[in-house]
C-alpha cells in the first residue's frame, strides 16, 4: 500500500484545493444571497441582463471566462491594477486568483439554488411576521433566512463541488504553479502529461473521490437535519 502515500507536493495540491474551494464558497455566499434575492423578488430595469451575466460562466467555455478574468483582474487589467495599487490585493498567478475563478464559475449554481428556495417561501408568512412587529430586516433574519436555509446549503455544496473540479478558468487565469495555484485537477493534468505519472494521478484521483463523497454525505446529513427541524406543512 506504499504507493498510496501522498508525496509532499501532492499533499500541497490537496490542501490548496480545499483552501481555494472553501474561500470560493464562503466569499461568494453573501453576494450570492443578495443577487438571488434581487432576481427572485426585485423589480427593476435590467433584471434579465443581470440574470444573463450571472449565468454567463455556466454557458461560456471556461477558458473564455479565465481569459476575461485575466484581462480584467490581471496586473495590467483595469480592476486588477486598481486593486493592486490601492489595496495591495493581487489575483494574477496567486491562489486568491484561483479562488476568484472558482467562485465565479460556481456562482450561477449557487445563485440558482438559493433563488429557487426564495421563490418557494410563502410570502404570507413574511406578512404575518410584519403584523407581529418585525421590521423588514428582522423578517428576513428570522423568517426568510431560516426558511431558505436548505437552499443555501445546497448552493454552498454546489459551489464547493464546482470549485474542487474547476480547471479551465483557473489554469487560464492563474496558470499551474505548484504550491501557489496548482489545485487537484491541475496536478492530475500535470501527472498525465509526464511519463510515469500514472501512480500520482491515481492517488490524487482517489483523494478527489473521497473529498467529493465526504462533501456529499455531509451535505445530505446537514440538509436532513434542517429538513427535520422544518417539517414544512
Amino acid at each position, binding site marked *: 500500500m506504499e504507493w498510496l502515500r501522498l508525496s509532499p507536493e501532492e499533499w500541497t495540491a490537496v490542501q490548496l484545493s480545499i483552501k481555494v474551494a472553501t474561500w470560493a464558497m464562503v466569499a461568494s455566499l453573501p453576494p450570492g444571497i443578495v443577487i438571488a434575492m434581487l432576481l427572485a423578488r426585485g423589480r427593476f430595469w435590467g433584471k434579465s441582463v443581470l440574470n444573463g451575466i450571472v449565468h454567463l460562466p455556466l454557458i461560456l467555455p471556461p477558458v473564455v471566462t479565465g481569459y476575461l478574468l485575466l484581462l480584467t483582474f490581471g496586473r495590467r487589467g483595469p480592476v486588477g491594477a486598481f486593486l493592486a495599487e490601492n489595496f495591495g490585493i493581487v489575483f494574477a498567478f496567486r491562489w486568491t486568483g484561483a479562488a476568484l475563478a472558482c467562485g465565479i464559475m460556481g456562482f450561477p449554481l449557487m445563485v440558482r439554488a438559493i433563488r429557487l428556495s426564495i421563490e418557494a417561501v410563502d410570502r404570507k*408568512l413574511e406578512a404575518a*411576521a*410584519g*403584523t407581529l*412587529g*418585525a421590521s423588514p430586516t428582522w423578517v428576513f433574519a428570522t423568517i426568510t433566512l431560516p426558511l431558505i436555509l436548505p437552499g443555501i446549503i445546497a448552493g454552498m455544496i454546489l459551489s464547493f463541488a464546482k470549485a474542487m473540479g474547476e480547471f479551465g478558468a483557473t489554469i487560464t487565469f492563474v496558470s499551474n504553479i505548484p504550491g501557489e495555484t496548482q489545485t487537484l485537477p491541475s496536478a492530475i493534468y500535470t501527472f498525465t502529461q509526464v511519463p510515469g505519472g500514472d501512480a500520482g494521478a491515481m492517488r490524487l484521483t482517489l483523494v478527489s473521490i473521497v473529498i467529493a463523497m465526504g462533501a456529499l454525505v455531509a451535505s445530505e446529513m446537514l440538509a436532513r437535519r434542517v429538513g427535520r*427541524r422544518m417539517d414544512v406543512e
Partner: protein
Amino acid sequence: MTLSVEISHRLGDFSLEASFESDGGLTALFGPSGSGKTSLVNLIGGLIRPKTGRIVADSRVLVDTKTRTFLPKHKRRIGYVFQDARLFPHLSVSQNLCYGRWFTPSNDRYANMEGVIDLLGIGHLLDRRPAFLSGGEKQRVAIGRALIASPRLILMDEPLASLDEARKAEIMPYIERLRDETKIPIVYVSHSIAEVARLATDVVMLSAGRVTAAGPTAQVMQRIDLLPAEERGEGGAVLDMSIAAQDERYGMTVLRSSAGEMRVPRLASEIGRTVRIRIRARDVIVATSEPRGISALNILAGKVEAVKFDDGAGADIGIDCGGQKIIARITRQSVESLGLSKGQSVFAIVKTVSFETAT
C-alpha cells in the same frame, strides 16, 4: 378605543369605498365573498395602501393620503389572525407565541403569556411544531400569537372559514372569551350569519365594495333584504333575553325579555344571565288570532311594524313584540289572505330558536 375608517381603493375592476367607525367590542365586517371585507382589514392592518382615505385608531393616524402618512404594518401594533393561521413552520408553538412579544416595546407589553395560553387552552401544545397541530389547534395558536404581541386592535379574517363545524364550535367560545375578558377591540371578517349573530357587538354590512348597513348587531341582522342570497334563509331577528327560571320537570329553561316569555330546551346556565338567541325569519309563523291546540310552545304577541315584499313570492313581516323586533318570512299570498297591514295585532309562533351565546 375608537377606530375610524374612511377609504377609497381600487383593485382592477373592483372599487372599495367604505367608511365606518367602531367603539370597541367586536365589529363584524359582514358580506358575501368579493364584497371587499378582506381588502378592508388588509388596509387597516397596513398590508395594502389605499388610493385615498384615512384610518385612525384612537388618536393615532395609521393612514392619511392627504398628509401622505402611512404607518408600516410592523409599527401599527395591530394583531392579525389570518384565515390560514400562517404559523411559522420552522418555529415551535411556544416560539411562535413569543415571536411578536419580542418586537413589542417593553412598556407596551400588557399581554400575560400564561393568561393567554390558559384562555386558549394551548398549554399542552407548546413544544410541538405547527405541522403536528390540527386545524383548530393551529387557529388557536394563531390567535394566541396575535394576542401575546399586546396589540391595540385585533383583525380576524374569517378565522373559522377553513374549519369544519366541530372545529368552529371548538374555537367560538375562545373568541367570545377574548371579546368579553380582554378589552381589545376586534374587527372580525365573516360571511356567516351564525358567526356574526353569535360574536358581534356591531355589524358593518358590505356589498360590492360599499357599506350597506352599519350598527348594533340586532338592528343590522334584521335587514334580511341586504343579506347575500345564499344566506337569506339564515336571516332573522337577534334578541337578547335573560334566563328567568329552570323547569326541572320538563328539562326546559324559561327566557324572558320585554317581548315576553320563551321556553327552550334546558340551557346549562345560571338564572339571571343574558343569552343571545337568533330566530330565523323562516321559522316564524304569523297568526291573526291566538292559536290553540298547537305544539309550538313559543307564541309572542305583537304588532305588525312593516310589511316588505320581495321580488318573488315572499314577504318579510316585521313584528314589534314589546319593543323587540321579530321578523317572519311568509308568502305574499298569506299576507293577502290574512289581510296583514301595519299596526295590526298578530301572534308570532316561533318554531325554532337558535342559541348564539350564553354570556
